[in-house]
């Protein structure tokens, strides 16, 4: 069904287009990952930690702030990639007709879609890197082991970018993105071991949490920031890669059906 000659390195040209656009607005976009972790650390760390005390996680006793700090990187990766390939890509595809313009050139639809997913992951990497610096300085992320999170953010970004692109391929109007956000992203944000360990959940819910890609990204983030996790990193890594490949395949099929009859 999918032909191989539609894939080439030419997708980097589309990636580069998004970079050129981003260079105009990076000064504003740069502030979010810089300040967001600080707000969370302040709110949850200072405000909450008095109520909660310590968290037992992966055979370690952690302060609540130390527990959530690495997960903030994972959620930032998720938001950045998912928003880019849903709202961002939808606007380019539907309102700006950017893809139509590109399709008249030697680019294939597949290259455009793959480039959009990689671009979303690039934004995730950028956000994760800035947050890494902030949290590293504050002592919540161990360095240099924390630097591993940069390539991990790429893989996580690809996974969330791919599923976002899939939703873009099947969503009739831009307002309908509320649905996957409400039904998928929000529960994932809350129940992926981000704000409390999954092991605190009732036994029957735990497998559902393990299916969330954010759970595995948060696991990897903790493994390389604080040196402990519930799940073996290799399992989380393989899960995210498979998730990325699976949803990229679905996204390509959905976009092809949507744009090319």
């Amino acid at each position: 069904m999918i032909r191989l000659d539609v894939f080439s390195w030419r997708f980097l040209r589309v990636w580069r287009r998004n970079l050129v656009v981003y260079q105009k607005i990076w000064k504003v976009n740069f502030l979010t990952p810089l300040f967001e972790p600080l707000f969370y650390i302040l709110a949850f760390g200072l405000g909450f930690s008095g109520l909660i005390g310590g968290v037992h996680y992966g055979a370690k006793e952690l302060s609540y702030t130390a527990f959530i700090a690495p997960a903030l990187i994972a959620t930032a990766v998720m938001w950045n990639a998912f928003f880019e390939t849903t709202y961002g890509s939808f606007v380019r595809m539907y309102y700006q007709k950017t893809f139509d313009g590109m399709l008249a050139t030697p680019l294939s639809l597949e290259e455009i879609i793959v480039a959009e997913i990689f671009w979303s992951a690039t934004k995730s990497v950028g956000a994760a890197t800035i947050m890494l610096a902030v949290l590293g300085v504050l002592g919540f992320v161990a360095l240099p082991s924390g630097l591993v999170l940069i390539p991990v953010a790429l893989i996580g970004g690809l996974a969330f970018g791919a599923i976002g692109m899939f939703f873009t391929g099947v969503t009739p109007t831009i307002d309908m993105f509320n649905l996957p956000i409400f039904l998928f992203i929000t529960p994932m944000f809350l129940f992926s071991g981000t704000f409390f360990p999954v092991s605190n959940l009732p036994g029957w819910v735990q497998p559902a949490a393990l299916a969330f890609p954010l759970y595995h990204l948060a696991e990897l983030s903790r493994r390389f920031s604080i040196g402990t996790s519930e799940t073996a990193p290799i399992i989380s890594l393989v899960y995210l890669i498979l998730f990325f490949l699976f949803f990229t395949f679905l996204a390509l099929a959905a976009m092809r059906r949507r744009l090319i009859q």
Partner: protein
Amino acid sequence: MEKILQVDKLIKQFNGLKAVDELSFSVEKGEFFGLLGPNGAGKTTTIRMLYGFLPPTAGSLQVFGMDITNDWRRIKFRTGVCHQDNTLDPDLSVEQNLLVYAGYYSIPPKEARERSAELLEFFALTHKSKAKVMELSGGMARRLILARSLINRPELLILDEPTTGLDPQSRHQVWEKLEALKATGLTVLLTTHYMEEATRLCDRLVIVDHGKVLVEGSPQSLIDRHAGKNIVEIEGPDQALKDFVRANGIEHDDLDDRLILYVPEGQDFDNTIREQYCSDKCTYRSSTLEDVFLRLTGRELRE
């Protein structure tokens, strides 16, 4: 002559409906070729197949002697497309639109800058090169889309309704630019709803309807063949006139409240009509491509 484009028994089906039905035509090198037809005739579908956006259901579509299904990328390297919709990138400036687009064709940055400066100059947009696309007028945006479609120095330029929605000044400016491009020997495929535009620009054209070619020829030969030399339009014709026209075998179209008479070259217009039936409601004019178009595709509304 070298064939740049060869369409042979092309079929495109959407959910069992044939949008393009065994369409055949060809375009030779250096030709300015028109693809005309009412809405829903299959023009845009054909164009979209031409630039590899839609896969044909059956038939063959060859550009530069290569098949679109297999050699789509090589064909697209050598083709320029000026879209009907504004597909300019609103996130980029005027100049960046050209430079980024050049990137899609792997044109090196230095060369891209040279070409974009040339094209902006040619389309009188140099003063706007740093402007945002949103700030351009309709005519300027259209010229920029044209400039962008030439960034890869195409051997075939596809123009999909290039002057739709433009004011007369902008339209004439676009026509002048297109004539200048034509003079360089560029092969062009044009679709338009403006018969004046097709008459002025096209060396040869086809009129298609229901996915099939109705007629093919130069604008003038089509007018001669299908709409005579001159035309008389008579408003509110009475039955006596209609009977007279029929009895004398005058080529005509009867639209009930309007009678259109086609008068071939070299034939004098019947004086009886002039004297007996035309008091103040007759219009005498030359035949145009629009008459041909309406005669062949009918006058009822489409869609």
